[in-house]
């Protein structure tokens, strides 16, 4: 079994041309990044607002847990059914998948940003206010930099969710590594299925490593656990 999976993964025929491993990997990444960017653009400002002002805390917590309960495949089919007749071309297939991925990617970012801002030392916030920083200055110069570790972990778990879930885009005919899973199953080619699953896992791991590197670069050493007493 392992030998046949290895054979599939290393078969040169699978590494070139349309529908090849590099091709589907790029497609998978493209969908995932669009979804992450859209999710972040929506979730970060909301998280910052709630964290900074403390307003709407309860609503946010409820929304986050509600979103987490969403069955992704169900939403995908509903979105596809509703949108297919109204949209033309590639977008008609892509949009339902993107909606699912964005919905799924938002909760970790929301709670990461909100929790990050919330856990900033109250004394530091108080000092910032007392020395004459405006609300915006406090947010950008104190709260956000101090929240970065949790903001990053929110983004990372969101990205992992999105990459894992992007495989279901293949169900409605889109590209991406999910193709190998769906097509493999349809053709009873289990080496292709297992190979596809491994590729998804490896991709998720590599992308997470990139994020970890970014985080190291962006977060102040003063916030590293080693710098704390």
């Amino acid at each position, binding site marked *: 079994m392992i030998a046949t999976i290895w054979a599939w993964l290393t078969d040169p025929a699978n590494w070139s041309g349309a529908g090849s491993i590099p091709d589907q990997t790029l497609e998978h990444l493209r969908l995932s990044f669009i979804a992450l960017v859209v999710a972040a653009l929506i979730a970060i400002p909301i998280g910052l607002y709630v964290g900074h002002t403390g307003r709407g805390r309860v609503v946010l917590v409820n929304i986050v847990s509600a979103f987490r309960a969403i069955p992704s495949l169900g939403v995908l089919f509903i979105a596809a059914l509703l949108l297919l007749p109204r949209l033309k071309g590639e977008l008609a297939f892509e949009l339902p998948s993107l909606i699912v991925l964005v919905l799924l990617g938002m909760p970790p970012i929301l709670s990461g940003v909100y929790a990050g801002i919330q856990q900033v030392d109250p004394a530091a916030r108080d000092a910032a206010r007392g020395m004459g920083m405006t609300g915006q200055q406090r947010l950008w110069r104190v709260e956000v930099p101090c929240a970065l570790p949790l903001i990053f972990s929110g983004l990372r778990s969101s990205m992992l969710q999105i990459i894992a879930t992007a495989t279901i885009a293949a169900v409605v005919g889109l590209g991406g590594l999910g193709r190998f899973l769906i097509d493999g199953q349809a053709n009873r080619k289990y080496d292709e299925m297992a190979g596809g699953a491994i590729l998804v896992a490896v991709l998720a791991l590599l992308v997470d490593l990139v994020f970890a590197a970014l985080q190291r670069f962006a977060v102040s050493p003063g916030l590293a656990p080693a710098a704390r*007493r």
Partner: protein
Amino acid sequence: MIRLEAVTKQYDEGTPAVDNLTLEAGTGEITVLVGPSGCGKTTSLRMINRMIEPTSGRILIDGQDTAQVPAARLRRDIGYVIQHAGLFPHRTVLHNVMTVPRLNGWGRARAETRAREVLELVGLPGDFARRYPGQLSGGQQQRVGVARALASDPSVMLMDEPFSAVDPIAREGLQDDLLRLQGELGTTIVLVTHDIDEAIKLGHRVAVLRQGGRLAQFSSPADLLAHPADDFVADFVGRDRGYRALSFQQHEVPVHPEEPVPLGQPLTRRGDEWLLAVDEESRPQGWVVPGEVGDAPVGREHLHRGGTVASVDGSLRALLDAALSSPSGRGVVVRDGVLAGTVRAEEVLAAIQAAPRPDGTSIQDERP
């Protein structure tokens, strides 16, 4: 000068947190607000820089009504120090201290030069600038907090329980340094504490507040100890206030010559009398008993260090304490750190008897 005029703060219904408080904090002085927990000290302090808006009344700084100044603007001109320092953990010590000058539009180079200057002032030279707050002790963090508040050279500084969370030894040092700094810079300081000893040590004037932010007494520390206005103040100031009042009294006390023995050399005198050991610069190090030293050179291991040391121009309390705490019964007195002689407890007590008392009231008297 900071003037609170009939200032009241009511949070919700119920009793006010601060009730009709009128108070003047003199320019170039340390004014301490002291009182039990929940009596409205923090609220009073934070109304001065408008972190809390008064329900009624006015607050003037040098004649200017603070309500007329935009809040953020006002705060950038007032130093602010709080209990847990509130340093920014993501910024180095240097950048923490540069914060307010930068907010005030100073260039980077000028702000950095100034930051290094004030760090030096608070006793954190050189290498500390590059560290992060998480790498400092509580006392050091508090020093950085003071440096940060002083960086833009404010004429007014507000301090809310600045030393309460620091261990007692570090606290002593911080208090002494604050007194020295304030003396050098002439900053007008309003300081909040629940610790009456700290209030008496630091304050030029002390305002004792009672529950509901009502002023119980506002006077000099010596006066507070000698004449508590009522039972609440007397109780709050504490039992041994007569003894502590001696901190503010000075009187001539005879200083006897003391023949010291140098550290590191064998004794030339025998007997069982206590001898005072000094270092090369004649600074007192501790007491030795010849019987314990024998023929060996006098070493640090022979020293009895129980006694406190008083300055020749120190208070009667310091002199009495030196005499009472000395194992030999001779209180060590120094001038600029160098041995000046010793005093005897009975002579200090005689001086206390002879010293003039405020308003002719005996300080040992309980109020009638």
